[in-house]
């Protein structure tokens, strides 16, 4: 259906345009918020604790902080317009470069976690919906409740304790790759893919081993909403008239459950997966900290603690743009999966 796809694209484009004002709002708001927060970057970056007043003044002038806030905002916006996100005081590098280096790490972790969560949650939800009220259903509910109750850093530490300390199965939780493995040529930035592209199976396995624990601890947290929504929409789907029709002509169990019920039930799951993904991107700072993962979230947190304006603003802008993109992607997926959407 090229027509349906075209309509979906038009809708997606319109959606993208309508989100631009929101992005602008996020920019301005973060900028102002950073100025309101306590802490003076000039004091922080002065050479030592006993730096004189003049020295601090000097730095402040150098950073442009002595100008009125509206003027600073105009400079900032024009810089953004030129694709310049500023320079981090902390690393001394342009923020854009920092983010570009760290974003793939975060994305790889989040994608993997979401994939694990979906692979676990959808079957769990389906099984629970097929036998509502059974032991399986209650088991799934208990598992989901536990996943939500235990904070990610606790589950992360527990996983490290069991799989690294006790069983020795996992490598030490120190980043994306251990220091002895040579990095593959960078293409996608996703280590697991780059290793594969370079044909280095051993390196790929090492990267996967590093990835699996943080991804699982993140996934545990989001399995619950995904499984619950799968169960709920699967129940609706199984009780619907068209599933009854499918049963009335004697379709096989597999066909009824997967082709008829699940394909319809998966639509709301796509929406929730999009929301969950955006949340995970921003909220995985705890996991990144626990596993020393060099991602954008821990970078932003460090910058925030040291009153380093530019990285924080850059991070928020990045997150907002990603959020828009992910929602757009969900929209497009929805348009492809549900022929009714493109018509309305």
């Amino acid at each position, binding site marked *: *259906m090229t027509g349906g796809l075209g309509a979906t694209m038009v809708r997606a484009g319109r959606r993208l345009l309508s989100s631009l004002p929101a992005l602008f709002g996020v920019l301005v708001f973060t900028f102002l918020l950073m100025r309101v927060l306590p802490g003076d970057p000039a004091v922080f970056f002065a050479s030592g604790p006993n730096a004189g007043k003049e020295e601090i003044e000097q730095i402040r002038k150098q950073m442009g902080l002595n100008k009125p806030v509206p003027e600073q905002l105009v400079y900032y916006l024009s810089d953004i317009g030129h694709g310049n996100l500023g320079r981090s005081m902390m690393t001394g590098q342009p923020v854009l470069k920092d983010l570009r280096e760290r974003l793939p790490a975060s994305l790889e972790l989040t994608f993997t976690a979401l994939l694990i969560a979906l692979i676990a949650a959808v079957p769990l939800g389906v099984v629970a919906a097929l036998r509502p009220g059974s032991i399986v259903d209650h088991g799934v509910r208990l598992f989901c409740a536990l996943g939500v109750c235990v904070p990610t850093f606790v589950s992360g530490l527990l996983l490290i304790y069991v799989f690294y300390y006790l069983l020795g199965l996992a490598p030490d939780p120190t980043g994306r790759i251990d220091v002895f493995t040579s990095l593959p040529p960078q293409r996608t930035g996703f280590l697991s893919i780059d290793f594969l592209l370079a044909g280095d199976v051993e390196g790929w396995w090492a990267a996967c081993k590093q990835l699996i624990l943080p991804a699982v601890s993140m996934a545990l947290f989001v399995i619950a909403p995904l499984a619950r929504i799968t169960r709920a929409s699967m129940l609706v789907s199984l*009780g*619907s*008239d*068209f599933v*009854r*029709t*499918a*049963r*009335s*002509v*004697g*379709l*096989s169990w597999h*066909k009824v459950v997967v*082709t*008829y019920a699940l*394909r*319809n039930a998966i*639509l709301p799951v796509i929406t929730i997966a999009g929301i969950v993904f955006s949340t995970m991107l921003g909220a995985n700072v705890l996991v990144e900290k626990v596993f020393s993962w060099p991602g954008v979230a821990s970078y932003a947190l460090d910058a925030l603690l040291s009153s380093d304006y530019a990285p924080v603003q850059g991070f928020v802008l990045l997150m907002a743009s990603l959020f828009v993109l992910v929602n757009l992607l969900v929209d497009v997926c929805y348009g492809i*999966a*549900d*022929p*009714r959407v493109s*018509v309305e």
Partner: protein
Amino acid sequence: MSEELLKIDDLHVAFSTRRGMVEAVRGVTLAVQSGEMLGLVGESGSGKSVTGFATTRLLDAAGRVIGGKILFRGQDVTKLRGDDLRQLQGAAMSMIFQNPRAALNPIRTIGLQIADAILTHKRISKEAARAEALDLLRAVQIRDPEARMSAYPHELSGGMCQRVMIAIAISCNPSLLIADEPTTGLDVTTQKVVMDLLADIAAARGMATILITHDLGLAARYCRRIAVMERGRIVEEADPRRLFSAPQHAYTRRLVAASPTATSRIEDLVTEEEREAYAAVVSKPRTEVAHGTPPLLEVRKLAKRFDQGSAAVADFSMTMAGGESVGLVGESGSGKSTTSRMICRLIDPSEGDIVFDGQSIGHIASRDFHGSPFRKDIQMVFQDPNESLNPRYSAFDCIAHPLMRLDGMRAGDALRKRVEECAQRVGLPLDLLPRFPHQLSGGQKARVGIARAIACRPRLLVLDEPTAALDVSVQAVVLQLLDRLRRENDIALLFVSHDLNVVRMLCDRTIVLRNGGIVEQGESRALFDNPKTDYTRKLVEAIPHIQTGPVLAVAL
């Protein structure tokens, strides 16, 4: 020839509910010969659909056969398991359902859905199945079947969806087809086309059919034998002529009386014993409107265009006198509901003028109209009594709400009195007033809806299919109530309906709409007895008629 294909013997089906086990079918015994079409008639809750679902083994998880046998070709259906059951479903017996659009998978093309059914029972290639599906679409007379193969259900009309459903049901040549309210919710003309198609296909393929319906007229038109169900039991079984001319059971008598026919009057809708009370009302002569009285409602060149579409209603003009009843009929999409909503000032017309009691009200924006003094003069009764009542308002609150909002009454004795007065007018027992909608039956909810509409003593009542969701016996009572309100309180009624029999009884005049324009209008009886346009004639002919006693005597 008279080999018994299906034999249901003392069937009991129970549902486990929160209040324990409830028996929905209590000892049904029924036989279907191969090739015959049997009508299974009853009102909602009579267990007719449950009997059908038990036969095809489609009862939902809460329902269970707790007694009796269902023998299909001598084999007890209730004991089948696994593959044996799947062999039966679709291949030996199949079912078509009410609400065809919901019965089809919304995200799968109809070609694939038909092919799914074929591939379940035949070991053929996907291409062969596709070709067969195409043949089936032709068999159910779908226009342009090649293109429709890749259509989704939402792209088809309700009637088309039901044809697709029929195609799926007959895909493996079952010997028994159970049709559960196959045409409820379709337009009368579509209903006739679909039922004719179903009857032709069943006859051509020698399929036995059980037609489950609440519509006696429909069953009478297509079935040789009709079984009437009441509260889980079959109370009477006869051929349609005998059933209508000499119903034996008291329930059948009531049902036959309540089913509107071409000649029935409103007072005929109840059995003779119940007729007395109503006769007094009808016999009272209506006060003639003095000459020169301006009309209550005058609509001039009304039009409505929804964004970028063609006109939903165009050039619609009419007048109504006080106390007059006018029917607005047409198929779905004819613009009758849009027109009624514009007159009610729930939506804004694109063009034209609405003059009520000498004052133009068409220009007041619909969202401001609640402040107009005419709001309480024009009230509306909606189609679905379940959906149109606030589930968190008790019946009392529902009726009191317009009084407080429009008449400015405060909570207190005066308000209580007015509400009780309204409830009495519509025959709603006062002890039901504290109840919430879900604690009331369909008929009671309909009464609350009417009581709410008449609470502020309106002069014009607009009714949008007020009885479409009701059983015929309840419909009879509601119609009588409306007619009495009109006669006693001089309320003008604008009655929107697709049920021509009802309009003919209730309305002095009728306006026939098609594609947003008036096709024909005039005195109801004359219009229906002698339609001037082909469209009206088609509508009138599509109504299933019940042949009653005297007519039959002549025919014999």
